[in-house]
């Protein structure tokens, strides 16, 4: 087994484990933190797979996002501390079945397909340059669209969240 596979596997397992913790714990803050660690593990996986830019980006973004999520959770949850021991799930069996089914299907497809030979990794510096060229060249439209979409989403979220002024 190559080192790459090992590291990928390690961080992968960590991501999965933290992911499970997200839903098993009853404390909201712990859920948020677990999710943070899960996403960070995913970022680490990116790094292990030599997608450095993406890995760093992922870790940075997720850190911020999860913090905000934690704040919102505390705001809106009935029992943020998780001390009440309430059952917070429904249609459990259907969900487990769905999840298991999806995982098995994806894994099965992954295992059974002949992916062909692996390719060599590109050098790191060249990666970023190439990514930039790609982004500003061929995928410019996607980028622009993404930017506009973000703007729209910001405005939409703000508009939805503003408290309606009552007119007398």
């Amino acid at each position: 087994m190559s080192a790459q596979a090992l590291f990928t596997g390690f961080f992968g397992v960590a991501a999965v484990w933290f992911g499970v913790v997200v839903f098993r714990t009853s404390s909201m803050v712990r859920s948020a933190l677990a999710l943070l660690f899960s996403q960070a593990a995913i970022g680490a996986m990116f790094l292990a797979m030599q997608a450095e830019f993406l890995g760093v980006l992922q870790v940075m973004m997720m850190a911020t996002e999860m913090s905000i999520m934690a704040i919102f959770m505390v705001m809106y949850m009935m029992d943020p501390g998780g001390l009440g021991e309430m059952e917070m799930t429904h249609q459990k069996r259907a969900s487990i079945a769905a999840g298991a089914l999806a995982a098995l299907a994806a894994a099965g497809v992954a295992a059974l397909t002949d992916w062909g030979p692996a390719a060599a990794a590109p050098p790191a510096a060249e990666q970023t340059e190439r990514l930039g060229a790609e982004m500003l060249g061929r995928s410019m439209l996607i980028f622009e669209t993404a930017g506009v979409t973000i703007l729209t989403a910001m405005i939409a979220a703000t508009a939805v969240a503003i408290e309606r002024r009552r007119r007398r």
Partner: protein
Amino acid sequence: MILAATAILAPLAAAALILALRRLPAALALAGTGAGLAASAATLLRVAGGASLSATLPGLPGLPLRLLAEPLTALLSAVVAVVGFFVVVYAVGYMEGEGGRVRFFAGMSFFVAAMQALVLAGDWVLLLAAWELIGLSSYLLIGHRHEREGVPQAATRAFLYTRTADLGLYAAIFVLVAHAGTSEISPTLQTGGAAATAAGLLLLVAAMGKSAQTPLQGWLQDAMVGPTPVSALLHSATLVAAGAILMIRTSPLLSPAVLLLAGLAGGATALLAGLVALAERDLKRLLAASTSAQYGLMLLAVGAGSSVAALVHLAAHAAIKSALFLGSGVFQHARGSTRLDRLEGAGRARPRTFLGFAVAGLALAGVPPLSGYFTKDAILAAAFGSPYAPLLAPLALAGTLLTGAYVARALGLLWRGAGAGGPVKGARWMGAGLAALALLAAALGLAVPPIGELLTGQELPEGALATVAGLAATLGGLALGWLVPEDRMLGPLRAPAERGFRPGGGLDALVARPALALGRAAARFDDGVVHAAVLSAGRAALAVAAASRLTDERGIDALVLSLARGTRRLGGRARELQTGLVHRELLLAAGGAALMLVVLTIGAAGT
């Protein structure tokens, strides 16, 4: 021929106009019959001397209608036209102030037209049609005042009696036409043998019905409930003459056996009807019985072999009898009834009317030089000269005797007694008609011999014995009637004579009641069976309709409704998917995405 046809068409047009306009009925009737009279007279002049006119009209296939104006028919047409005209003149006065004038004058005009068609007919079909039409007119005119008691029954009886006898005419025509192959009258008169005898007998039956001979004489008495002009025109001079006319026209056809029968029937009627006339208590019924008797004498003359004697007597009798009826009508208006006990002395109160009446009466009795004398003389001579003289002559003499007797009786009743009576409306018109006909009654005698010879080419029979015996009978009868008191007349025969010598309950029981019973049975059948059948067919149709409606409602409607309900239920089930719960929706979304993925994979794998 148009001229002759005008005799038919002018009164017919008058009848149509009266019915259409409903105004001036009297004037139109006068105009129609007057024009008919002119046309008839002109035709008579034309054909005098043996000429003949004819016309053919389209009729049934193979049986065209023919009009024939030869001396015989032209004379008859003239008789009908003259009497018709003067009776209408009289009727103008008679009907003054009465109701239903439109109906009356239209009926009279129509009758004249139909009678003219009958006498001028050249083929059997037209003759038969006219025969029926005069029967119809008689029914309508007798029943003119139908709201009065007994009048509709009398009209129906007259119609049924004559109609029953008409069956003889139908059968006779059938035999003759089948035998001769054509419906024209003249050729069919050449038929001989058994067919001729059969046809002759049947014709005799029809003639006896129409001319009110024994045993069919009952209807004429009862027909006197009609208005007096109707009695004068129809039931003395023309309609009842149709029977005699038939006999006269078909006399070449009749075999000796038939002739004998005719003679006997006529003679018997002359006797019996004369007795009835002696017993009658009503003036018009007396005259009706007298009519039967006189036509009996005519039939006797035909039976004796001299149709020309019958013909001249017919002409004379037409004038005489209608004059007598017209006079009786005046007395009726004066005293308000025709019963002899009410009319006593009416003659004394109205001398001019009585004069006309008396002249006509004496003419009937056969007093010379009035017309009746000549014609009676001819009949008696024929009777004495015929092969069956021992049978016919006594009957003829008895008839003559009785004629004198009842004439004298009537005159006596009218003259003797207190003269009184109210004023009579329309006396001038009535008087004019009466006067004209009485004059004819008197004067026609002068024309009798020429008429006979010129027109028919036959000689009038003459015989010294006949003349003497006839005069004796006439005068004897007159004396008897005048001198013998009322209650002594006829003695034991009085009661049956009053009843009119009706055989076995009369033809009422024999014919009319069965016919009416049959009618009632047919009506019951119709109501019960036919009606029920039709109604049940209707009900069946309704049942079918109800059943189809039921099928539609239960079957088809139910089907459609269940379809709608099923769709709604399905929609309800589909709605249950829309719970609005987020987790469920997410589950569904996940399931749908998986499905789509599978489909796409399979699709991609396939290509």
